[in-house]
């Protein structure tokens, strides 16, 4: 690929005529530029092609510093965007070789973009994670009179059964949490719980969900989650919420369709 090629990255699309004055810079500290593409407006940056051409992404795919900083730049612009209005976030990276090809791509996908915009209009994403805090303890052999091998086996099987029952109970409680929160959201997605390595927590994550919430309902949403968090604490569950996020989880057609109602 020639290195003098123009590269345009798209952060997302918004309603036209959104004021982007004073927004933070995006990826590689590039300024954000609005590209009108009726009936929407794309938030873009022109990136230096030698640093962001596909080969560069492959080169940097394992360079956490590079990737983390690029991801932060993308997210920074989208955070500014949801403060200013409704935005359909694009996945990172969304690269186009020039204004012409960008306009063509937006045109070709106008229906999908419009549908996504309709879905997220007046709404933002909130994340809710639930961690399990009731680590099942080790078999306490001291407390029971274990004299024979069969005593041990009986104690052991009793322990296994107790654990299975605890698991079922947790499963039901998490499900109830999810459904109660879902009651005051427009749509919901459950993602794979993050590994402790990713979550940075020792407690196992049992729910990693995203909810699409009306902007006007955010206070009610928070109150509801807080109530659930309070109640769940004594049941061995730690509930955490974060937001508002750009509606990352509800921008893509397939995912949002799958999300309409899940158990």
């Amino acid at each position, binding site marked *: 690929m020639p290195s003098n090629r123009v590269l345009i990255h798209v952060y997302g699309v918004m309603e036209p005529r959104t004021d982007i004055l004073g927004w933070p810079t995006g990826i590689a500290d590039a300024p954000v530029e609005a590209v009108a593409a009726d009936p929407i407006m794309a938030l873009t940056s022109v990136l230096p092609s030698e640093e962001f051409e596909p080969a560069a992404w492959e080169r940097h795919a394992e360079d956490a510093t590079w990737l983390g900083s690029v991801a932060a730049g993308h997210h920074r612009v989208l955070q500014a965007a949801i403060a200013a209005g409704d935005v359909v*976030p694009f996945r990172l990276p969304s690269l186009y070789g020039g204004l012409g090809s960008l306009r063509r791509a937006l045109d070709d996908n106008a229906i*999908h973009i419009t549908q996504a915009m309709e879905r997220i209009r007046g709404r933002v994403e909130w994340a809710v994670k639930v961690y399990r805090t009731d680590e099942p303890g080790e078999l306490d052999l001291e407390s029971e009179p274990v004299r024979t091998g069969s005593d041990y086996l009986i104690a052991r099987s009793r322990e296994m059964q107790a654990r299975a029952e605890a698991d079922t109970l947790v499963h039901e409680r998490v499900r109830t949490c999810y459904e109660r929160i879902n009651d005051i959201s427009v749509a919901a997605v459950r993602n794979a719980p993050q590994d402790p390595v990713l979550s940075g927590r020792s407690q196992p994550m049992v729910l990693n969900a995203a909810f699409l919430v009306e902007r006007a309902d955010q206070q009610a949403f928070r109150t509801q989650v807080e109530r659930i968090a309070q109640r769940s604490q004594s049941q061995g569950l730690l509930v955490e919420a*974060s937001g508002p996020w750009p509606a990352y989880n509800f921008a893509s057609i397939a995912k949002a369709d799958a999300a309409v109602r899940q158990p």
Partner: protein
Amino acid sequence: MTSPSSDLQAGQTGGPPVGRPSSPYLSTHAQAQSLADVLERVLDKGIVIVGDIQVRLLDIELLTIKIRLLVASVDKAKEMGVNWWEADEFASAQNGDGNRAELADRVKALEQRLKNDAETSDRTQGKADPEQSSR
């Protein structure tokens, strides 16, 4: 908590209710958005509008683990402009060397899986540029 970055404050104005003090149960503001959360979203979610330039992305799980391995300190994160997770417990927890060997093993396993995936998807995906060739 030290002062959040100015980017963060821009993010916090995104919704009306986020300004009030947070409850002991909920962290309902942008500081709770960890780097892993951001990566999980920006690399894996969002609408995909295929253009003339395509980049094939590696497994998100591998990427985020590597981030955790390499982002060893808050200072480093500040350099990267991603220090909003400064208050997160993991930042201090991950600074120890305790599970680095374990992480490295996991990365190895994931890389092997990626290699296998790449071999199969190279055969199925073909060349990357359907848009351009159709014009």
